[in-house]
């Protein structure tokens, strides 16, 4: 019951489909699958027949045969309401359009061959409607539907582009002098050649168009079928009328052109079979199945049956009534990789598009409103964990990135960096310069630090989950730590490299170095400006002095020595700042510091390269390069150390140094609260930039009100900056009890375990 109601509530406002268990429907499913396989067979046969019979004649025979059978079965004239004149007119229009669609479909069949036709044309209405809904409306039904639509489009594109069928090319060659049997085919051929695509691709386009037409036609005919009293009656009448419509044309064709058919009698059996399998059986089975199951499910099973059957038949089909024409080998439509891939995609697309919408699956029925509509309760999880589609995910995260200052800054700089990298790479590939390419890859590698920082800045804002109960604030510190380590490693390698170069200075080609490194320097300078601005932003209160800092910084970027000192001093300065204010903001957060240092290191690198290039060029000091690198490596190393130290302290759960004094005085205050005997195990640690967690045990006298003390302590510690506190208040007796317990902790643990293993009622009555 609950399952029934919870399945599909949100989509479309109506109550969801009811998924009946498969076991009850096995009969119908088997029937459906059989009919689909037969249909595939029929289509293959009709392709063979269409090689000899003209398409108009073929459709006429088809319509006529089915009309006869349906007249016998349905008796549309003797049963049901009397049909008015206006309805007759509508019926005629209906019949004409159905004729046109069949013509298009079968013409596509002659162009593309049976397999592709089956893949393209035989989609259920549900699939196409869902597809069009995704493509042209906003409320497409969620990301999974979007994915399905994408699969569908990919499949069509696969058929269009990656399906190299030799036959089709050949047909394209010979069709001008070939069978231009009628004005219609001629017109179609001209239209396709006007589109400027090859024949079979034209066929694909044609089939897609006619598929859309078919769906529109079915949708439009729904009203008429209601007016006439049932789809079956409409179908019967429609076949009859279409046969009538086709009759003159077919008669004229038969009269004017000589038939390629040897004996019509030998074609009677295949025609009968086609009529039975393609027209009659499929119609009835679909009608029955959609009555018993819901339409999407029907379509899903149909697709699962039809497409593999089509693939298998395409492989093994050696038509029982194939005329052996001389060009048989050449005219065989072969299986190509593109077709197989697109078949797979079609199956996936139709299964996704017809899958019931997953939204609101987790809602649980809580009851009924006074009006009688069911009420659902949606847990937070259910709403959070809807499936994410890639475009939407990107859109969302972009929005999130741009929301906050830090991440926006990183993001813009990342874009700049990437752009520079790609320009460098392209230019490198274009001019075939290995140095540029490798430098580009190096830049790309640097970007990873930025990506990491960006990701961390995003992740920090995630909500706490059950597993990560303190939230994800620590990611920031971890990212800073990783960035710092990264820099250390790089510095180490640069150091090693330069030592080995010091021993054996290589000849450096200085021509190309300068423009590239100047470009890199410029990019990095922009980055430094941006991030030092962020720095000032973080400081907030003292923007004036920070601005000064930033400027001096900037000014120094021309001399590497001063610059590096500026950077170093800067980070320290920021630190001192925070100390003096002591207001809980630690200047920049670790993440931003890591990114900043990384950019700084890069800048230093380019500055070093420029200086050494100049030195080498002017004075021919080859030794300048390794010395520069040595110097830079040391500088990077030194500037990273404070960051690493801070991050390590946080990760080691140190009491936050800025709060230490406050906390100590707070603890003293706590001791002075009336009724508090003492405290024990005070732990305070910084979890992330703005969360300081703390725990403390208090021993209180037995006659005080615990709540008051908890409130007081919480207030005191909140003043000291702790915002995630838990206080355990212990009365004296309890304390003695617990301290006894913790001396014999192991024994207690062992006892309780033993107890659990011996299946005592382990509700813990042991202690009391």
């Amino acid at each position: 019951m609950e399952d029934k109601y919870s399945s599909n509530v949100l989509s479309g406002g109506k109550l969801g489909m009811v998924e009946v268990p498969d076991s009850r429907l096995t009969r119908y499913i088997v029937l459906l699958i059989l009919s689909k396989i037969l249909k595939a067979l029929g289509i293959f046969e009709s392709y063979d027949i269409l090689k000899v019979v003209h398409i108009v004649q073929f459709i006429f025979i088809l319509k006529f045969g089915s009309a006869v059978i349906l007249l016998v079965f349905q008796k549309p004239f003797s049963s049901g309401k009397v049909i008015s004149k206006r309805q007759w007119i509508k019926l005629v229009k209906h019949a004409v359009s159905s004729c046109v669609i069949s013509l298009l479909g079968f013409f596509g069949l002659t162009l593309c061959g049976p397999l592709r036709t089956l893949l393209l044309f035989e989609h259920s209405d549900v699939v196409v409607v869902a597809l069009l809904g995704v493509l042209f409306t906003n409320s497409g039904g969620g990301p999974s539907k979007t994915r399905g639509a994408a699969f569908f489009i990919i499949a069509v594109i696969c058929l269009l582009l990656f399906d190299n069928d030799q036959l089709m090319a050949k047909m394209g060659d010979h069709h001008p002098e070939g069978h231009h049997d009628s004005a219609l085919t001629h017109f179609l051929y001209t239209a396709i050649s006007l589109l400027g695509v090859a024949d079979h691709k034209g066929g694909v386009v044609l089939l897609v168009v006619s598929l859309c037409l078919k769906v529109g036609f079915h949708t439009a005919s729904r009203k008429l079928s209601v007016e006439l009293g049932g789809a079956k009656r409409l179908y019967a009448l429609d076949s009859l009328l279409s046969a009538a419509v086709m009759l003159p044309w077919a008669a004229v064709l038969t009269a004017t052109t000589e038939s390629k058919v040897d004996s019509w009698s030998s074609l009677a059996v295949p025609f009968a079979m086609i009529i039975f399998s393609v027209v009659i059986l499929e119609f009835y089975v679909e009608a029955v199945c959609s009555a018993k199951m819901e339409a999407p499910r029907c379509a899903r099973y149909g697709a699962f049956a039809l497409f593999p059957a089509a693939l298998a038949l395409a492989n093994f089909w050696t038509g029982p009534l194939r005329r052996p024409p001389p060009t048989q080998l050449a005219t065989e439509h072969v299986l190509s990789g593109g077709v197989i891939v697109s078949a797979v995609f079609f199956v996936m697309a139709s299964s996704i598009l017809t899958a019931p919408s997953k939204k609101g699956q987790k809602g649980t029925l809580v009851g009924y409103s006074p009006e009688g509509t069911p009420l659902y309760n949606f847990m937070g999880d259910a709403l959070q964990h809807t499936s994410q589609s890639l475009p939407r995910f990107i859109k969302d995260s972009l929005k999130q990135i741009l929301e906050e200052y830090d991440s926006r800054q990183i993001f813009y700089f990342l874009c700049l960096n990437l752009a520079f990298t790609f320009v460098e790479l392209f230019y490198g590939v274009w001019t075939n310069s290995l140095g540029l390419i490798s430098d580009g890859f190096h830049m790309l590698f640097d970007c990873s630090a930025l990506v990491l920082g960006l990701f961390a800045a995003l992740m920090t804002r995630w909500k706490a989950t059950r597993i990560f109960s303190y939230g994800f604030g620590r990611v920031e510190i971890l990212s800073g730590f990783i960035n710092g380590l990264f820099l250390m490693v790089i510095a180490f390698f640069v150091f090693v490299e330069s030592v080995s170069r010091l021993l054996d200075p290589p000849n450096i080609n200085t021509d190309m170095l300068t423009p590239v490194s100047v470009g890199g320097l410029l990019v990095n300078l922009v980055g430094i400006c941006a991030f030092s601005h962020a720095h000032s932003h973080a400081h907030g209160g003292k923007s004036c002095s920070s601005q000064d800092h930033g400027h001096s910084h900037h000014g120094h970027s021309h001399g590497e020595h001063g610059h590096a000192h500026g950077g170093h001093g800067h980070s320290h300065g920021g630190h001192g700042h925070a100390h003096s204010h002591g207001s809980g903001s630690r200047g920049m957060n670790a993440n931003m510091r890591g990114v900043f240092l990384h950019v700084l290191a890069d800048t230093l690198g380019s500055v070093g390269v420029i200086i050494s290039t100049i030195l080498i060029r002017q004075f021919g000091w080859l030794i300048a390069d390794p010395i520069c690198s040595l110097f830079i490596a040391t500088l990077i190393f030194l500037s990273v150390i404070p960051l690493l130290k801070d991050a390590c302290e946080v990760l080691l759960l140190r009491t936050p140094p800025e709060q230490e004094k406050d906390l100590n005085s707070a603890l003293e205050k706590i001791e002075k609260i009336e009724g508090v005997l003492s405290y024990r195990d005070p732990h305070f640690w910084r979890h992330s930039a703005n969360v300081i967690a703390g725990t403390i045990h208090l021993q209180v006298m037995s006659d005080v009100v615990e709540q008051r003390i908890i409130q007081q302590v919480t207030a005191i510690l909140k003043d000291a900056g702790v915002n995630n506190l838990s206080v355990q208040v212990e009365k004296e007796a309890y304390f003695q009890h617990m301290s006894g317990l913790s001396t014999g902790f192991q024994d207690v643990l062992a006892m309780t375990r033993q107890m659990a293993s011996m299946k005592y009622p382990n509700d813990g009555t042991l202690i009391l």
Partner: protein
Amino acid sequence: MLPLSIKDDEYKPAKFNLLLKLSGWFRSILADKTSRNLFFFLCLNLSFAFVELTYGIWSNSLGLISDSFHMFFDCTALLAGLAASVISRWRSNDSFSYGYVRAEVLAGFVNGLFLIFTAFFIFSEGVERALEPPDVHHERLLPVSVAGLLVNLVGIFVFQHGGHGHSHGDGGHGHSHSLFNGTLSHGHGGHGGHGHSHDGHGHSHDKHGDHGHSHGGHGHGHGHGGHEDCHNELQRPGEGSSKQILQGVLLHIIADTLGSIGVIISALLMQKYDLMIADPICSMLIALLIGVSVVPLLKESIGILMQRTPPTLDNALPECYQRVQQLQGVYNLQEPHFWTLCTDVYIGTLKLLVAPDADTRWILSQTHNIFTQVGVRQLYVQIDTAAM
């Protein structure tokens, strides 16, 4: 009650005495089995690197010099492990109220990161070389790599041996338990590493197996509930020697060993069959193996550093919450935070909303009892009385 904080009037900072400090460090290193092993292996590695360096400078061979620097870089991993194992035994003080036990997790993390870096570098190098194979001078490659392999093999043996000895020392009964638990998981891993050091492929499998084992071992201990198991668990933080450090160091050594093996194999292939492509392929494979085998370690240590709810408690906690909520007088359970301090030490805080007339003392001890049973070592329960 005595005041628990120490006033620093009588405490004068001792004069910095390098010798004293060094000897102190030395003693603390030698005091523990793990750090002793680490230290010896570090010495071995360093001496090898120095020999290589001096020989390289003497014979003016750039390859040897760069290789020796690589060895130095490797030593940093060992150094990190060693430092962590010493640091994690430092007492807790005012600033570091939990002590320094987390250092071991951090060391494991750093080692894992370094390995990932290394794997990445090797991989990119391999790709570069696969595109245009340089001609490697394989005549000198072989001896160096064989020597490196020998050193690393010694390392693996040392750790394996140390692990076993430790387990035997723990007592007869403890053998099977402690084999699975914490300390010995590295011994196991060492064994795997050794066995597999002859073919690189199985290595990652074994790493996975090792990982699974330690978890399985955990379940084992819980289910049977042997005494030794508890002892082990309780004494570990004091003794240092944690899973993370050793796992990290061992992974590093195994990675190095694999590297040498790869070099040897490719050198042989190049010498015998002139297969120049063997070198980059080997190095890429090795890089992949390293990368894959490091992932579990990194995942675990990041989880701990981010105060994740311990995976081993994942299943047990909801049941505990349920039981606490069923205690008489408990209305609600709020803000449960559970996290791992270091290997197998779990800390939790939670707030209980109780009825005004509930027996808070009873609830408190019951709650403590419930969570102690699943292995939470330190618990802070704040009891809030609901408003009337």
